[in-house]
């Protein structure tokens, strides 16, 4: 039946709908470039969602844990062998995503007899200056969204990942006004938490087109902080150590955010 082109398109559309449904409840992740590095932040209920890929590359993901694990392992494997055979400086997020992950995810998605990857991933690579930071979001179908400037859009020094398109778009809209790249760590943590709250609120309402009120965001943030743990990680810009990735424990941030 799927030899017919129409059937194939229909099967792909069904598959897309199914995956979107599966990913929809995923808790948002915000990644913000600031003066001294890149901050990844999310509020987690259960599983770890932020991971170290290589010296300067971190990853956040939502989706099925088995699929996230397979993609994470593949990314680490590729980065490590590249870093070993050439050098750590030759490991590049752009190559990793564009040449390796995206094509594989696309073909897994379109081969409708095989299983697709139920995962949406956000990668960041820290540069020498905020202008060199690279953020790439990879969808289950291999689609890539970067933070670079286009004729229609200015460069963004942040990236977000969320369960629904609408939630992600409003998080971006929020950060566009709230976040500046040369900001301090503390300010970045606050912006990230607020952006997370915006994204999380919008996962629960399906028809909001506008950003929620300031007070509502603050209220939601306070409620969620009381019941979930903060999961965060930084990629440090400081070039003295080779390994820039460091995960931050909840208690390191708790005192900062409750002030």
């Amino acid at each position: 039946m799927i030899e017919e082109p129409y059937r194939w398109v229909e099967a792909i559309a069904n598959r897309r709908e199914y995956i979107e449904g599966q990913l929809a409840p995923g808790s948002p992740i915000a990644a913000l470039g600031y003066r001294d590095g890149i901050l990844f932040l999310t509020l987690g209920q259960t599983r770890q969602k932020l991971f170290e890929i290589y010296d300067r590359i971190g990853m956040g993901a939502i989706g099925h844990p088995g699929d996230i694990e397979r993609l994470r392992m593949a990314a680490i494997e590729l980065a490590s062998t590249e870093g070993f055979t050439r050098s750590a400086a030759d490991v590049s997020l752009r190559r990793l995503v564009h040449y390796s992950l995206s094509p594989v995810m696309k073909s897994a998605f379109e081969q409708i007899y095989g299983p697709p990857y139920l995962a949406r991933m956000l990668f960041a690579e820290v540069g020498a200056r905020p202008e060199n930071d690279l953020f790439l979001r990879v969808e289950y179908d291999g689609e890539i969204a970067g933070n670079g400037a286009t004729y229609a859009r200015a460069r963004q020094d942040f990236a977000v990942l969320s369960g629904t398109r609408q939630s992600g778009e409003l998080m971006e809209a929020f950060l566009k006004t709230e976040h500046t790249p040369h900001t301090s760590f503390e300010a970045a943590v606050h912006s990230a938490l607020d952006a997370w709250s915006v994204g999380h609120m919008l996962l629960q309402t399906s028809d909001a087109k506008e950003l929620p009120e300031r007070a509502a965001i603050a209220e939601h943030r306070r409620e969620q902080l009381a019941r979930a743990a903060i999961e965060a990680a930084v990629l440090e810009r400081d070039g003295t150590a080779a390994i820039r990735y460091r995960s931050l424990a909840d208690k390191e941030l708790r005192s900062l955010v409750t002030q």
Partner: protein
Amino acid sequence: MDRSPLGFDQSFPGAADDFSALLRRKGLLSSAVIGPMTRDGTQPRTWQPTEATTILAFKFSGGVLVAGDRRATAGNTVVYDRADKVLEIDRHSIMAIAGVPATAWEMARVLEHSLQYFRRTQLQEMSVDGKVRALSKLLRDNFGFVMQGVGVVVPIFATYDGNSKPEARLYFYDAMGAQFEATDYAATGSGSPAVRGILYYENNWGVKPLHELGEEEAVSIALRALDTAAESDTATAGVDRAGKIYPVIKIVSREGITTLPESKIAAVFKEMVA
């Protein structure tokens, strides 16, 4: 079809935590084979223990001090007088090498990447015993080359165990990969007999036992020991007074690894050794 290192392995086997196995699967690590027999059935060459260098390590009050001279030789020729044989593997581990540089540096590189790969994929640090064992395995895998008379490596491994009972740990190996934990000190390389004599003497009849020494005293003993080794061993440089080239000295402690700056070593040398 050739598989490039950036190729994506879809038939991913799961928990592949062994980095050297991964490299071998991708054809990026040569595996040594025992040398072929010659026609008359004898091994063409026998193993010559030529670890032409001197490295030493001992525990002192501030952790473990690891020192190595700077000379690299090929036969009777001095090839290089600024070689670094004391290599950082991770934030708390040092591998100091005596032996064939090409193999030793490659081995250090594999070990460094293995530990990082383990941490990243498994989301936990490898235990000290695991790290010690990983180096042992690399040495065993290399034994084919050793038997062919090339590629012998005899390292020292110093690390800080931050687990249940925090303490500095020191290990030395033989060329086949047997590991031995040293209680006080270890030395390998062609100049090591002299060094071992000095460290034994200092530990038993010196002003203080080695583990009570302060940093400056420890550095001065390391410098004296290397200088003594250089006196009788042509493959060890000791301290090059004319060229002002000093040994590499690193210290492993709870805080991590400190590389002593040359100026500090020079000051201790001037005051207590020269």
